[in-house]
Structures are given as structure tokens and as C-alpha cells.
């Protein structure tokens, strides 16, 4: 791959960062390179854009993955101008790039020339400064908490490069003047958290949705930069609180890889078991809340019953019901509880019966089928372009399960099936999750009697320092790919910790997927995507 690129782009330089080929290229050739990567090398899945502040320059690292052969490549683009940093946008190549670029703009102030929508994403329009820059003043009184309503505008901006090379800012309206815009959220029981949709409707049909985020943006990435590595872990519980174990697993594994720590087999197995238990619990809650969105409140009580049982298992071992903080660097916090094995077996016994029951009560129901089948269809191509991973992506026919595609931990030794459906509608997303619960149960069955003996946590230095370098890895959360990017400058604290949540993509696709649908279906489509708002906002 390196030779192919070098032939066409002689100015590019290459390095290998954490086994990923990283191409450094100047801004003038970036768009051409991106087009080449996407079209010729099939890098059709843009995993993330990591904004960076290297003090002397600002820049981005683009991580791309091919859905054909699972190869990865990264591209580095930077600019030394800190006042007007311009980078060419790739929003025309990957649909999700538009949102990613807005995020980078919000955090670093990098302006993407050509992006049709260059508003801030999480912070309000009058926010002063760019928080993830190293010279950001956190105590700026102009950013203090205020009970005055934030300024709203109906315009967005786009930056266009002129023929003479200068860049001009243009104002574009978000909605047409005669659009009828309905505001849904942020306080709305059906948006699953504090998310806001500005919805343009034509009668009952949705014309366009403008998604507003940031109502629970807590600045986790910035906070992590001032904490030591073990101290960054508890935040993983609080992003996607249903994937707490999976996210912990991800960050711990990346840090362990960077520090060269090998953990015991016992810890690996315990981690995987906890991940799969979380997955079952998470999908249970999904089924409950989704059915509630459709008006079947009773299902919530049925599914929460199983979830409570899983929470009991976890509580006995981890000591908490939700924010476990269980995986630690080097293994897990404490050994499993004495009745862990018996409890998991009891769960495995009742689970198939319960899934059958859910199917009987809900899946075959005429009303449910009418409201789910053929509603909110997402094609495979769009799913990839928007980076929709997890059960929602697999429902569109894209095999994107990182446990299979890029196996980590002990997943390569386990026997399980990657559930993929073709339809891409709400029903498929619902069914994929139901089947995934069965697969997770199958994984648990294989492990429950084979937990190896050994220590549950290896010794790690008290003040853990990572060597200089950068690492990027992808893991499977309950809602999709969870990426971790760690850059270290050799101290005990991360220089940059970028967390790639799956839910940001899920929220970004709402506009695309609901166009032309009825407004009553907005809630069910959003519910079937199953996003968690604190996860996308971080």
C-alpha cells in the first residue's frame, strides 16, 4: 500500500504507528489522497478524526478502515496557523465526516474548507475559545454558567476557497424560509436523554432534521489530560453506562498494550464474561425501552427483570450496580464472587425462556410489525458511509463486529456467530439484538465452566508511565465500535486521549434515515438506533 501511495503522492511521508501505516500529507494534496484511498483502496469506513494540538501546529489524524479486507490506514494533516487554521474538508467523501469535522472545529478551532455546515457541535455559539487546545483558558468568566437562554440562529456557515487561494466565509440558512420547524427536545421523554431535534415537517412528513447535541457534554477528553492513566478509567463507566465493562476493557487493553503489560488468562476470561453479561443487560434494556416507545410499556418490566438479575451478579463481584470501575490496568479489581459461576448458570437457564417470551409477546404482534417493518431503512452503503456500527450497522448487512473482524482479547478462540441481517429496517435492528443476546449467552456457556486459575491482576508500577508514542484500537461496545486513541509524551498523564463513541454516528444518521418518514416514526426509528446521549456528547 505504501508504494502505491508513494507513487502517486511523492510528497507524502510514511511512518508506522501502532502497526497502522500513517501517511503525513500537506493540505493541498489531502483531498486527492482521501479520494484515492476511498475509491481505489476501498477505505470506505472513516473510523474517526482525531483532532490534535501539537503546540507548534494544529492538525487531524484520520483513521480509515476498509470493509473489504479490514486493513487500516491513517492520514495526518496539519497546519501551523493557529489563528485561521484551514484544512480541506472530506465531508463529500464520507457522510459522517461532516459531523466529525464539526467536532474537531468545536474542540480545536480547525476550520474545514468546503464543509457545508461549520457550526459548533457541543458548545453554544457564543462559547469563547476552543477547549482542547493546550492554551485554552478554563476559567474564562465569559463561559461561566448562565441561566440566560443561549443565542439561537437559523444560519450556518460554510467556508469556500476562492480562485486566488483565500478563504471566504458564507452564511447559509439551515432551513428554507417556508419550512415549518418543530422543536423536539432536549427535554422530551422519547429522545432517550437530552438530545434536541429541530424538525422541518411538511404535514406529517419529515423534510429535514437538525440534530443539536451538547446538552450533556461533560468534557471528558479534556479532563483526562490532567489525570493519570488509572484515574481516567472511571469516566468509561459514565459515557455509555450500559457498556461500562466493554469501555473499561477497551481503554485498559490499549493502555496495557502501550505499557507492554500482559494480563493473566483468568483476567481475560473474566473481562470477556463481564462484557457479554453487559451486552445481554444492555440489549434487554433496549428491548424494554424500545417497546415502550412503541407503546408497550409492560415489556419494560419483563426485560428489566433479567437486567436486574445480571446486575445482581455484577454487584456481588464488582460492588456496584452501574458504575462498576471493575477492569483495571493489569487485570480486574478483585476476584469473582464465590457464587459467580452458579449465578451465571442460573441466568443462562432462564434466558432462552425469556427470549422466547419476548418473541411471543412482541415480535409477532401485528401492530409492532406494522410499525417496524420497512420503517427507517438504512442501506449497507449508507451505513458504512455514516460509520453506523454495532447491531444497527449489522442490521443493514455490514459485518462490522470487531470481535470477529479485528479480534481482541480471547474472542478469536471462541465460537460464536456474527449476527447480520439484510433488511436494514427497524425490525432488523430489533431482531439482530435479540439474536445477539443468544450469541452472548453462547459465549458465556463456553466460558462459565472454564475460568482458568491464576491471578486476577498482575503487578503494575504504582506510577504508570507510557513510552512516547500513539496507539489506536477498536473494541466492540454494546452499541458499536468503541475506539481509543492514546497519545503519550512519556509522562504519567495522557497527552491526548480520544474516545470514539458509536452513538455520535447513530445520532448523525437520524436526519438521513428519517427523511420522508412520518413524524410519528421519528421516535421509533430513533429508539431502534438505540443511542445513548452521554456517549455521543462525552
Amino acid at each position, binding site marked *: 500500500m505504501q508504494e502505491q501511495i508513494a507513487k502517486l503522492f511523492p510528497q507524502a511521508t510514511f511512518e508506522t504507528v501502532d502497526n497502522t501505516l500513517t501517511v503525513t500529507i500537506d493540505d493541498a494534496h489531502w483531498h486527492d489522497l482521501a479520494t484515492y484511498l476511498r475509491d481505489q483502496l476501498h477505505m470506505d469506513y472513516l473510523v474517526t478524526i482525531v483532532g490534535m494540538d501539537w503546540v507548534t501546529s494544529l492538525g487531524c489524524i484520520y483513521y480509515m478502515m476498509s470493509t473489504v479486507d479490514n486493513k487500516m490506514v491513517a492520514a495526518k494533516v496539519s497546519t501551523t496557523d493557529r489563528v485561521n487554521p484551514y484544512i480541506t474538508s472530506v465531508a463529500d467523501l464520507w457522510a459522517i465526516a461532516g459531523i466529525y469535522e464539526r467536532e474537531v472545529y468545536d474542540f480545536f478551532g480547525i476550520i474545514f474548507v468546503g464543509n457545508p455546515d461549520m457550526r459548533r457541535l457541543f458548545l453554544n455559539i457564543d462559547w469563547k475559545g476552543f477547549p482542547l487546545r493546550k492554551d485554552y483558558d478554563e476559567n474564562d468568566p465569559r463561559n461561566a454558567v448562565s441561566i440566560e437562554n443561549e443565542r439561537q440562529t437559523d444560519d450556518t456557515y460554510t467556508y469556500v476557497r476562492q480562485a486566488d487561494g483565500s478563504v471566504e466565509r458564507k452564511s447559509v440558512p439551515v432551513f428554507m424560509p417556508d419550512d415549518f420547524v418543530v422543536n423536539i427536545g432536549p427535554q422530551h421523554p422519547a429522545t432517550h436523554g437530552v438530545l434536541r431535534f429541530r424538525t422541518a415537517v411538511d404535514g406529517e412528513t419529515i423534510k429535514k432534521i437538525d440534530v443539536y447535541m451538547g446538552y450533556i457534554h461533560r468534557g471528558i477528553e479534556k479532563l483526562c489530560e490532567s489525570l493519570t492513566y488509572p484515574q481516567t478509567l472511571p469516566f468509561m463507566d459514565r459515557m455509555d453506562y450500559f457498556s461500562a465493562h466493554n469501555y473499561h476493557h477497551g481503554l485498559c487493553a490499549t493502555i496495557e498494550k502501550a505499557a507492554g503489560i500482559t494480563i493473566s488468562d483468568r483476567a481475560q476470561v473474566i473481562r470477556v464474561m463481564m462484557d457479554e453479561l453487559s451486552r445481554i443487560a444492555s440489549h434487554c434494556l433496549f428491548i424494554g425501552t424500545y417497546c415502550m416507545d412503541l407503546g408497550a410499556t409492560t415489556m419494560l418490566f419483563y426485560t428489566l427483570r433479567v437486567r436486574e438479575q445480571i446486575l445482581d451478579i455484577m454487584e456481588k463481584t464488582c460492588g456496584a450496580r452501574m458504575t462498576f470501575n471493575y477492569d483495571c490496568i493489569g487485570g480486574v479489581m478483585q476476584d469473582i464472587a464465590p457464587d459467580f459461576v452458579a449465578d451465571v448458570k442460573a441466568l443462562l437457564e432462564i434466558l432462552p425462556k425469556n427470549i422466547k417470551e419476548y418473541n411471543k409477546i412482541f415480535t409477532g404482534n401485528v401492530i409492532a410489525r406494522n410499525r417496524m417493518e420497512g420503517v427507517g431503512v438504512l442501506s449497507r452503503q449508507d451505513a458504512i458511509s455514516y460509520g453506523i456500527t454495532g447491531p444497527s450497522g449489522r442490521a443493514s448487512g455490514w459485518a462490522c463486529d470487531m470481535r470477529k473482524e479485528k479480534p481482541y482479547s480471547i474472542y478469536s478462540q471462541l465460537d460464536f456467530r456474527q449476527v447480520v441481517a439484510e433488511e436494514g429496517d427497524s425490525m432488523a435492528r430489533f431482531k439482530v439484538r435479540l439474536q445477539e443476546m443468544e450469541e452472548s449467552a453462547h459465549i458465556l456457556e463456553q466460558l462459565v465452566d472454564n475460568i482458568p486459575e491464576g491471578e486476577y491482576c498482575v503487578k503494575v508500577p504504582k506510577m504508570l508511565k507510557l513510552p512516547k508514542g500513539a496507539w489506536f484500537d477498536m473494541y466492540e461496545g454494546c452499541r458499536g465500535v468503541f475506539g481509543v486513541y492514546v497519545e503519550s509524551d512519556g509522562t504519567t498523564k495522557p497527552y491526548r486521549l480520544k474516545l470514539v463513541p458509536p452513538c455520535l454516528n447513530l445520532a448523525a444518521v437520524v436526519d438521513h434515515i428519517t427523511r420522508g418518514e412520518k413524524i410519528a416514526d421519528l421516535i421509533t426509528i430513533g429508539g431502534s438506533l438505540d443511542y445513548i446521549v*452521554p456517549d455521543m456528547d462525552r
Partner: protein
Amino acid sequence: MPYEAWKDNEYIEGLVNELRENGTNVIVGTFDKLINWGRSNSIWPLTFATSCCGIEFVSLGAARFDMARFGWEVARASPRQADFMMVAGTIVNRMVPVFRRLYDQLAEPKYVIACGSCAISGGPFRKSYHVAKGIEDIVPVDVFVPGCPPRPEAMIYGIMQLSRKIKVERFFGGVNRQQKRQEYLNLVQEKQS
């Protein structure tokens, strides 16, 4: 719950004494009792959850913890129909005006429970650039429930405390603690200066 099991009897008794010192009319007092009995046993929450703590609030509504036992299960989606607001989750800068507006829209008499360390002080995110350091600076709070997240049992305890507070209130005559917006702003200013 037996009397000894409560942790803050002194505080509630202090409140009762204070009210008594102001003198109570016998007839009105009896009405008060009757109305408060009704009010305290059917406090309706506003469905308001921003993050993790909200999920525990959902568990509270389900069969295991079953808040319907106490008459709190009627979670309202509109603040105009709710009696109290369980602030479950982090409140960030962008949410503050919305949150304040929701509070303003609650019908009188209204109550606020700060649930979880985020609502109390900003919790694990206290040092963040975009998190309000406790909701007490934004709205008056009646009960604090610590925890990250508080267990559902703790939430039950917290709401029961609220019922107890409601029971000793005087419904008639000048106790509805509506704070006018200007009054509140002055208070905040005083606090800051």
C-alpha cells in the same frame, strides 16, 4: 419506616417547631394536615434524566423497587403536571437555561431533589469546563441524595424525606416558597459578591 430509622429527625423537628412558633390556626391546621396527607402520598415526578443516574431512576420505576408502592409512579412528561423534579444526572452549561425553565414551569408548590453527586456538586466532572458545579446555584433544592449513582433504595429514602417535609408544611397562608426570578437573581448576586 419506624421513627428511629430516620437519620435527620432533629432537622424535621426543628422545622416543625419553627412553624409552630409562628402560631397555627386550629381549623386551618386541620385542613393543612388533611391536604398534606394527600399531597405527600401522591407526589408526581417530572421525567427528567440527563445521564447515568436517570437509569437508576428507571430501575426505581420497575417491578423490583416499584415506586408505585408510595404513589410516585405517575411520572409526567410535562413539568406543568408534576410536583417535583428528580434531578438525576449531570447538568452542563448548555442545559442550565433549559433546566431552569423546566423548574420555572413546575406548578406550585414544587420541590427539587438533587440526586447523585453530579447534581449536588458536579461530581466526577467538577473540574470540567462545561459542567455546573451543583444545581443549588440554579434552583433551590429540598433534598440531596448522595451517590454515584445512588442506589434505588437511597432514592426511595430521599423521596420519603421529601414526603415528610411536605407533611409538616403549611399549605395555607404564605408558605408556598415561590421565589421570584428577580429575587433569585439578587440572591445569586449576593452569594457571588
